[in-house]
């Protein structure tokens, strides 16, 4: 009950391994609740949207849990949301996997497509090129993060006009360049798994918690 710890809800909509996300956020300094309860998800200081598996399957589970509404409402009110892995991908307009096209939440323009690389999935620890001024990567230099995915967003087309702050885009390369992380107002997302990225990942989560 330490009053200064931010309260974070990890959205429990039936997506793969969320255990680690809960434990890593606790390690990073949050009070964490794993729940699908909409009221709790709306009221928390931060909402984490995990995502493991196929884009269309994640969207289907997310939609049946009315997760999209929660994300929309939070963002409309400027309340922070963090998407991880496929939880990042679904923030875009649509995803194409194995030739199947599915609608995403449409928070950002663009399509998530298969990486053009000789070996897929892109699995393991890769370097990233953080944007100067990034909050997420503040104090984190020359660290690698754990990726496991075959699809990604590789274009950023959203233009943000002043006085709104420009999004911070962080890139990585596997066969081609793709978005490793985006910080756009209250909506933050990482293609890699900070909860599986050792000390660097905990530090990054702690940076996100610091921004809540």
């Amino acid at each position, binding site marked *: 009950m330490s009053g200064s710890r931010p309260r974070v809800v990890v959205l429990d909509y039936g997506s793969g*391994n969320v*255990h680690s996300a809960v434990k890593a956020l606790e390690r990073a300094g949050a009070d964490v609740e794993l729940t699908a309860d909409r009221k709790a998800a709306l009221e928390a200081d931060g909402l984490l949207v995990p995502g493991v*598996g196929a884009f269309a399957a994640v969207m289907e589970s997310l939609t049946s849990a009315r997760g999209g509404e929660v994300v929309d409402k939070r963002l409309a009110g400027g309340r922070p949301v963090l998407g991880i892995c496929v939880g990042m991908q679904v923030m875009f307009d649509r995803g194409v996997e194995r030739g199947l096209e599915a609608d995403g939440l449409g928070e950002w323009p663009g399509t998530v497509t298969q990486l053009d690389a000789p070996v897929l999935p892109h699995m393991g620890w*890769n*370097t990233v090129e953080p944007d100067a001024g990034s909050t997420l990567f503040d104090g984190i230099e020359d660290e*690698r993060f754990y990726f496991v995915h075959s699809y990604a967003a590789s274009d950023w087309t959203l233009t943000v006009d002043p006085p709104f702050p420009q999004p911070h885009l962080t890139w990585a390369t596997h066969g081609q360049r793709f978005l490793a992380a985006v910080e756009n107002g209250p909506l933050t997302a990482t293609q890699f798994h900070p909860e599986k990225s050792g000390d660097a990942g905990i530090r990054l989560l702690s940076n996100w918690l610091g921004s809540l």
Partner: protein
Amino acid sequence: MSLAVRVIPCLDVADGRVVKGVNFQNLADAGDPVELASRYAAQGADEITFLDVTATVESRDTTYEVVTATAEQVFVPLTVGGGIRSTEDVARLLGSGADKVGVNSAAIRRPELVGEIADRFGAQVVVLSLDVTRADTTPSGFVVTTHGGRTVTRIDALEWAREAIERGAGELLVNSIDADGTKDGFDLELITAMRSVSSVPVIASGGAGRTEHFAPAISAGADAVLAASVFHSGQLSIGDVKSAMQAEGIGVRS
């Protein structure tokens, strides 16, 4: 800079304990999987693999508890192999905190299992584990074995790898029965052959004895290297292995 080569220690777990002696100094309990996994993660292990060698179905419950306890403290990916026969087994393991599962003999008996797991949880969850030896009975000269190499099948190892990838395997763990235990180095011929048919990452296993054995496995086409006894005995540390590879110009996570 690009993707780092992964170094993966493998721990055999039975009835909630690590079996096969692990000789580290200053361990409170040499058989505690959580303590050992934390130790390896602190040394720079890029992933941890548990091989569940539990003999009975009942004692599998303790494996789930071990996975949960480990995932609470160790923030690197965790793969669990051994005894996985159904998507329900996979659901329980992932629910306990595992990130990937290794399937071996059950997939040989029923190849559909690979696709079932991939369809429900994604290809990245499925690590197809192959124990391979040489035989002149198959086109490639490599054959799949079961029961730790004691039973030789008639399945061509390269054909099986191809088929499993098509069915949805996201990674291959290739263990050379011929090199295993020799400490003479990885089976480079086998790694090269597997790389030639694999579009997914290849983990090389079997034969590591010295730090200089690792770089050639990478040059032969492996994306990751897995070892057990050389790490457990204290003969090599994860750091030693990474330094040796780095000296050969191979990217590792420091």
